[in-house]
C-alpha cells in the first residue's frame, strides 16, 4: 500500500497548497478565462467598446487561409524540431553510453546548451547565419552558396528548426542516457552471446526497451515546439519571410499585439488551449499504459 500523509485539520494543508493555487489562478485561470471571454467579442479599433460576435471569431479563423497555413507550418516545424533534436540526442547518448573514460566531461559539456534561454539561443544562431556578418553564411558564400534566410522560406525554416533543436538536444540527451543506463547490462550481453551485433542489438533490444523514454520525450518535445519556441522565432525571423515560420503561437502574438486584432488572437489562444489539453491527456493516458513492455 502507498503511504499517505494525513492531516488532522484543513488549515495547514490549505496553507501549504495556497502558493501553487494562487500562482495557477493568477497566471493561468484568470488569463485563460479572459481569453475565452474575449474570443467571443470584437473590440473597436480604439479598445473602447466590444461587440458580441459569438463564435464569429472562430468561424473567421477556420476560413482564413493564413491561419490554416500556420497550422501546416506548425506541424512541419514541430515534426522537424522533434525528429532533429531527438535523433541527434539519441545518437549522442548511445555514444556517451559506450564511453568509459571522460564520460563526465562529455556529459557536462552536452548539458550546457540547455541552460541557454531560447531567445538567447536564437540570437546566437542569428549571428552565425546573419546574411551580412554571419560567420557561417560567410563560409557558405565562399563555397558559392548564397545563404539568405530573410528571403528564402526553406532556409528560414531550417534556421529556426536548428536553433530550436540545439538546446533541446541537451534535455533529450539526458533522458536518453538515463534510459540507456537503466537497461540491464546483462540483457545486452545475453543478446551479444545470442549472436546480435551492435546494430541488431540496438534495433531489437535497446530501442524497444527505450520506448517509454522515447514516447515521453516525443510528447514533451512536441509541446516544446508548439509553445516554447516563440523566443527563437521572434529573434530570428519574426515569423517571416511571408509567414513561412509563423507557427500558431507566433500568430497569436502577431495578430493580437502587432495587428491589434484581440478577438481573433483570443480565439487562437483558445484553440491552442484545446490542443495543449489534448496533448496532456494523450501523455497521461499513454505513459500510464502501452509503452510499458
Amino acid at each position, binding site marked *: 500500500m502507498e503511504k499517505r500523509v494525513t492531516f488532522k485539520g484543513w488549515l495547514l494543508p490549505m496553507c501549504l497548497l495556497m502558493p501553487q493555487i494562487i500562482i495557477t489562478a493568477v497566471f493561468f485561470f484568470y488569463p485563460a478565462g479572459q481569453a475565452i471571454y474575449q474570443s467571443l467579442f470584437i473590440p473597436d479599433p480604439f479598445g473602447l467598446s466590444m461587440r458580441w460576435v459569438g463564435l464569429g471569431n472562430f468561424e473567421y479563423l477556420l476560413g482564413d487561409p493564413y491561419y490554416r497555413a500556420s497550422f501546416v507550418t506548425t506541424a512541419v516545424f514541430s515534426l522537424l524540431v522533434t525528429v532533429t533534436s531527438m535523433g541527434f540526442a539519441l545518437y549522442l547518448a548511445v555514444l556517451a553510453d559506450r564511453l568509459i573514460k571522460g564520460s563526465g566531461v562529455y556529459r557536462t559539456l552536452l548539458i550546457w546548451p540547455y541552460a541557454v534561454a531560447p531567445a538567447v539561443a536564437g540570437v546566437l544562431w542569428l549571428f552565425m547565419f546573419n546574411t551580412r556578418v554571419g560567420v557561417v553564411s560567410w563560409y557558405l558564400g565562399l563555397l558559392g552558396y548564397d545563404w539568405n534566410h530573410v528571403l528564402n522560406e526553406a532556409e528560414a525554416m531550417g534556421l529556426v528548426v536548428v536553433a530550436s533543436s540545439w538546446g533541446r538536444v541537451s534535455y533529450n540527451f539526458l533522458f536518453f542516457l538515463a534510459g540507456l543506463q537503466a537497461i*540491464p547490462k*546483462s540483457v545486452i550481453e*545475453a543478446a*551479444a*552471446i545470442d*549472436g546480435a551485433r551492435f546494430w541488431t542489438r540496438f534495433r531489437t533490444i535497446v530501442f524497444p526497451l527505450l520506448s517509454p523514454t522515447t514516447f515521453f520525450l516525443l510528447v514533451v518535445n512536441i509541446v516544446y515546439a508548439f509553445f516554447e519556441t516563440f523566443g527563437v522565432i521572434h529573434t530570428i525571423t519574426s515569423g517571416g519571410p511571408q509567414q513561412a515560420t509563423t507557427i500558431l503561437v507566433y500568430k497569436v502574438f502577431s495578430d493580437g499585439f502587432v495587428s491589434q486584432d484581440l478577438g481573433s488572437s483570443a480565439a487562437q489562444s483558445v484553440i491552442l488551449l484545446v490542443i495543449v489539453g489534448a496533448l496532456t491527456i494523450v501523455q497521461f493516458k499513454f505513459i500510464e499504459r502501452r509503452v510499458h*513492455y
Partner: protein
Amino acid sequence: MATIKLDNIKKSFGKTDVIHGVNIDIEDGEFIVIVGPSGCGKSTLLRMVAGLETVTSGEILIDGAQVNGVEPMDRDIAMVFQNYALYPHMSVEENMAYGLKIAKTPKAEITERVAEAARMLQLEPYLKRKPRELSGGQRQRVAMGRAIVRKPKVFLFDEPLSNLDAKLRVQMRLEIKELQSRLGITALYVTHDQVEAMTLADRMVVMNGGVADQIGAPLEVYSNPQTEFVAGFIGSPATNFIDAALVPDAPKGASKIGIRPEHITLLPSGQGKLSGNVVFTEALGAETLVHLRMDSGTETFTVRQDGAMALPVAGDPVGVDWGADDEMAFNDKGRRV
C-alpha cells in the same frame, strides 16, 4: 560439445590484478563448478570464457582453438545469468527463438527447437507470456531454454540459482544436473554456494583470491583439501582449526590442525585430546551442533553429533577426541603438510 582449456589465465583491471594465472583442463561433456567467496575472481573467469571480458594474458582454447580475441557470438557458447537477463519486451517463445532468428535458422526448425526445449523445461503453457508474468523459477527455466535451443558447444552458468528461494534452488539444481548429463554439453558453472558445487560438479575448482586453490572431484576436495582455505570453505559447518602446538602428536612443520565437526567425539570432562566448555547447542533434528569454547583460550569448536544423542547443557565442561587420520595439518603458508 567441446573441451575447454584455460592456460595460465591472468586478468587485471587497471593496476589491480584479480586473477593470477589459472590453469584448468575441461573434458568434453564435463560439469565443472567454480566455487569461491565473493571477489575471488570466479565470475570474471567465466566472463572471460564467454568473451565478455578481455584476457590480460594466457590462452583460452575451446576445442583446441584459441578464442582470446573471438567475439562472444562466434564462440558457440550459451550463458545463463544470475538475473536471467531475459528480454523483457519479448514473450517466452520470442526470448528462446531470438538467437536462432539472428542465425537465420529456418522458421520451421525454430518452432520445433523452441517447442522441444519448452517441453523439456515444462514451459509449454507459458510460451506466450512476457517475463514479468512469470515466477522466479519459471524465468530461470526460460533462461535455460534460451541456452538449450541454440545447441551450443558450452554452457556457462553465472550463479543462476542465487535469486531463487531455498526449496526452488534444490529443485532447479537437480534439473540442471539432469539436463546437462542428458544433453552431454560441457558446462562451466560459477557459484559461491558450496552445496551447489558439491552436488553438481564432476570436478570442482575452488578459487581463492584469484588463484585456483584446488581442482578435483567434490569428495576428493572435501576429504583431502590441499589448503587451509579449501578445508575451511568446503563443508558446513566449517572445519575447526586449532594451533598445532596444542595438539599432542601434530606432524612436523604443521602450524594449524583442521578437524571436521563430524569427526569429533564428545567425551566426559578430563578425557580426550583437548577440553573445553559447551557454549550453546543447535538441535536440527537429525543432527545437533554443539559449540564449544576450548580451555586453551581463543579457539571455538563446532561438533556435529547425531540428533538422537543427549543434548549437552551450556556451561558443561567436556573433553573432545578425534582419530589421528582425521587430522588435516597445514603449514604457516596454509598449504597441506
